[in-house]
């Protein structure tokens, strides 16, 4: 073959040769042009991705750490015992500790401001620390308590321009003075923000955490998975391997494809109308009775939404198994069910799994249908079961993005980052599965 390409083109007429050269040059030019256009498209897409990640990561990073104040805590009060350590009101103890940390502050107004340096949730934090360490009772300890969100933002240099007049700031001159002073004394420690990763929602930015939403998302997805995979894969197997090819199955197929294109909010309306309210048919109610805001309801709605994706992906995977494999199995006397479950399904599995994971990733990022079934409610407690009120990551992001406090801006970005991490992990698993089980036949 090489000698052909190397030999000069022997043309009978020079004009033909010229014309051909021109055509070739034109073709190459067109090819190059297309290559550059493609490269440009990829590069600009990459640039947008970098900008997106840059802003999110840049905004999210401050939320991953938090500033704590070392507060002298006096636990010698007779009223505090091991029995009531978990219920005791620590507010006064915290208050006195703060006065001790910044001595010499007089006057009701200033003292109130001083108290405000530490988070209003500090007493609750202290309660859980003391409950975990009952040997402290009756002693004096120095304990790190979270600062208020404004103090934390100031120390992170996120307060904006502090040379503005005092009245335009959320952080007054005296607060700045105290903060600087405490920092100089080494009483402030920047720590990993464990509150963010262990707490549920809260109105106080410093006490608000993502864990409730993570648990809610996990439970919701579990419901979605358990409902949509068996039903979806079963439907795909039936339609591909067993169903007769007639008008009815053709009609079903078209409708499944249409369902995949239905906007997700419509599924939310279905959830609201059918699962929550039920359809009243005179004396008889169809559906209804699902708990509002709960993972089981959200998961069911998302399962309905994901089902077409799972069915379509599974059918494609089953279809891609060569018919020769079915013939081989049937040819030695396997029943149709055996051929399907022993041979076709294992070979289709990677495709099915990939489709399922991508469907799940879509469900994980879904917000609109969950808003309609009440998962947007403000839920402080971390859900303990599938019927408990819960929220999910994207809804949490949606809510935080709406809060005015600056502290929530970082939380929003951090929550987006966590959601992105989950999505990337899920897609990576899908790619890994596809490569691991890829077969040739």
């Amino acid at each position: 073959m090489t000698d052909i390409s190397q030999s000069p083109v022997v043309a009978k007429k020079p004009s033909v040769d010229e014309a051909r050269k021109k055509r070739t040059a034109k073709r190459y030019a067109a090819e190059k042009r297309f290559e550059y256009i493609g490269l440009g498209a990829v590069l600009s897409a990459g640039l947008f991705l970098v900008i997106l990640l840059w802003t999110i990561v840049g905004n999210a990073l401050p939320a991953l750490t938090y500033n704590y104040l070392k507060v002298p805590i006096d636990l010698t009060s007779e009223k505090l015992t091991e029995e009531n350590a978990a219920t005791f009101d620590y507010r006064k103890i915290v208050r006195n500790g703060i006065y001790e940390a910044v001595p010499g502050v007089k006057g009701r107004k200033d003292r109130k401001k001083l108290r405000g340096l530490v988070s209003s949730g500090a007493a609750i934090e202290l309660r859980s620390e003391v409950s975990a360490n009952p040997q402290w009772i009756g002693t004096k300890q120095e304990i790190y308590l979270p600062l208020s969100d404004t103090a934390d933002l100031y120390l992170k240099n996120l307060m904006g321009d502090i040379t503005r007049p005092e009245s335009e700031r959320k952080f007054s001159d005296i607060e700045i003075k105290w903060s600087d002073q405490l920092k100089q004394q080494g009483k402030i420690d920047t720590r990993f923000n464990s509150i963010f990763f262990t707490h549920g929602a809260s109105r106080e930015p410093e006490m608000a955490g993502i864990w409730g939403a993570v648990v809610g998302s996990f439970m919701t997805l579990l419901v979605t998975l358990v409902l949509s995979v068996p039903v979806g894969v079963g439907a795909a197997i039936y339609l591909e391997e067993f169903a007769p090819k007639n008008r009815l199955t053709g009609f079903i197929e078209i409708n499944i494809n249409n369902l995949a294109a239905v906007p997700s909010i419509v599924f939310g309306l279905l959830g609201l109308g059918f699962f929550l309210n039920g359809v009243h048919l005179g004396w008889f109610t169809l559906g209804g009775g699902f708990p509002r805001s709960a993972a089981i309801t959200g998961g069911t709605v998302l399962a309905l939404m994901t089902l077409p994706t799972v069915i379509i992906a599974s059918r494609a995977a089953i279809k891609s198994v060569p018919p020769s494999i079915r013939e081989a199995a049937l040819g030695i006397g396997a029943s149709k069910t055996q051929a399907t479950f022993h041979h076709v399904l294992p070979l289709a599995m990677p495709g099915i799994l990939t489709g399922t994971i991508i469907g799940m990733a879509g469900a994980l990022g879904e917000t609109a249908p969950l808003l309609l079934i009440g998962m947007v409610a403000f839920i402080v407690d971390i859900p303990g079961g599938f019927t408990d009120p819960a929220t999910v990551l994207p809804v949490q992001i949606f809510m935080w993005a709406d809060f005015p406090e600056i502290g929530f801006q970082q939380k929003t970005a951090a929550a987006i980052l966590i959601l992105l991490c989950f999505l990337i992990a899920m897609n990576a698993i899908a790619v890994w599965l596809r490569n691991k089980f890829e077969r040739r036949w």
Partner: protein
Amino acid sequence: MSATKTSTVETTTPKISCSDVHVFYADKEAIKGVDLNIKEKQVTALIGPSGCGKSTFLRCINRMNDTIDICRVTGNIDIDGQDIYAPEVNVVDLRADVGMVFQKPNPFPKSIFENVAYGPRIHGLANGKADMADIVEKSLRRAGLWEEVKDRLDQPGTGLSGGQQQRLCIARAIAVSPSVILMDEPCSALDPIATSIVEELIDELRQNYTIVIVTHSMQQAARVSQDTAFFHLGEIVETGATEDIFTNPKDPRTESYITGRIG
């Protein structure tokens, strides 16, 4: 239409007898009333131009056409005197008794051992592991593959060469101890050396199995078969001993096919 008349080996009753077989794909008639007797422990070749219905007819014998929705078969096919389209016949058992080897080697993407063991397992033919290993070895030996694969039974069957894969498929069919083996152009995807090995194997298998082979190669039909049936446009034009058909064709269409004018 009687094959016995011209056959070299006299047998009393045929292993498979087909009468007035019609096959329709939807409204299209692919087989138009075929009568054919196939003798036991012989190789019968089905030849004819492509698209004339050889594969379609072959697939009637183990009811593989049942798997095609639009396909309809009428007429009678008896194996050992039993009508295989009778309602009491279990198609799963039928296909264990009538094995099939396909045009393109289609081993399961599993180990060589698993390929052969799968049939006996689903039919419950083996008593325990040792028995299964025994069946696998015997089948691979019969397929002439044992020596080549005995050290790598756990490796994927799809990793073998084309000819080896086809013999693996033959071993897989043998493993469920059929009495008939159907082969649909088993060598068309193989190189000449692999082809001659498979042909030799077919000749050996004749001692134990009734073999029906579809081929478009005249030479192959001449080399491996004792009887030949010539198909043309869904009908059998001529049947008889292979030797007779090739040396002394009665029908002008057979003659022109053999001499290469249609095909």
